[in-house]
């Protein structure tokens, strides 16, 4: 994360810095680890994936003459007989943000080479993610129970179910992948792969480095970021 001091090359600030970074040799993103740059570009690409999903959703919803189901009613949860709109979604949002916070701290402790804190925080993040996925499973089964299907639903436009399952499904898929990797990395941290020089990977010469935790963090925050948009467009709209 920190800039290496680059000999003979003073890093200029601001847009001037951008121009000189771009015009310089060797690297354009000064001091950015290859893997981190890769993750950023990947996330950019992934942003386009989710954007296309959401744009399709917008177009689909805008052009259907059939009434769109009212989300706060469809997603309401009954607590003691009283429908509380979006309760589950609210909890899911809070869980995901919590896990984002623990992830951010894990990254920080990773750079401080604080193995214990980093490991536990990554594990906490993984558990947060798992909780989220679990609640999503619950939500899906509840909706399916109420008769919502990808090809139709009792509340209104058929596209509601289609887009709902597809987009939350794709997001949930991202979360699940993230959870798997979080567990793997928690293991790696505790197993000492990051100690000293770093352990070499399998079938490659890569050495483990705490920067991987930041890369993983980028991914995890991105998943949270996407949820912010889904929450706004899908549940609140």
């Amino acid at each position, binding site marked *: 994360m920190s800039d290496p001091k680059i000999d003979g090359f003073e890093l200029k600030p*601001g847009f001037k810095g*951008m121009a000189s970074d771009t015009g310089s040799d060797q690297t354009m993103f000064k001091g950015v680890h290859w893997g981190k740059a890769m993750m950023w570009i990947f996330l*950019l690409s992934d942003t386009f994936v989710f954007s296309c999903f959401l744009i399709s959703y917008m*177009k689909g919803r805008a052009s259907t*003459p059939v009434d769109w189901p009212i989300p706060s009613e469809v997603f309401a949860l009954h607590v003691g007989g009283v429908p509380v709109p979006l309760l589950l979604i609210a909890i899911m949002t809070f869980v995901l943000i919590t896990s984002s*916070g623990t992830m*951010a701290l894990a990254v920080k402790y990773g750079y401080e080479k604080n193995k214990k804190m980093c490991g536990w925080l990554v594990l906490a993040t993984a558990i947060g993610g798992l909780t989220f996925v679990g609640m999503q499973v619950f939500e899906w089964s509840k909706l399916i129970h109420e008769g919502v299907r990808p090809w139709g639903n009792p509340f209104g436009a058929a596209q509601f179910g289609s887009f709902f399952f597809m987009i939350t499904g794709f997001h949930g898929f991202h979360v699940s992948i993230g959870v798997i990797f979080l567990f793997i990395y928690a293991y790696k941290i505790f197993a000492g792969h990051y100690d000293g020089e770093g352990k070499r990977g399998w079938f490659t010469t890569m050495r483990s480095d705490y920067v991987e935790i930041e890369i993983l963090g*980028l991914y995890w*925050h991105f998943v949270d970021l996407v949820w912010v948009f889904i929450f706004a467009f899908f549940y609140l709209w």
Partner: protein
Amino acid sequence: MDETKKTEQQESTHKIGIYLWIWGLLFVLSFFSYMVDWYNFQGMLRWSLILFFMFLKAGLIMAFFMHLFWERYALVNVLLWPMTAIVCFVALMVAEGQYTLFSRIFYFFVG
């Protein structure tokens, strides 16, 4: 913040306080956007509030949790400029969606 300070700060990692702050803010903002639904605001107000909280939250996550605030402009700009294509796509699809709806209602329904 000017770049030299940024570089200095990166020598060590960031203070824990800043993460906790952002974390708290995210909770508060999520709570607010939930309240938009709870109080059942409608129309323009709902629309703008939802978008406002959404972008604020997204901005905070990107800037601090994903460290974009501390990254050099070269990276930040590379990430943000492609969004113009998305913005264009969104704008045109809004127009297209409304046009489709219009022609469907106009030609298919009695009225």
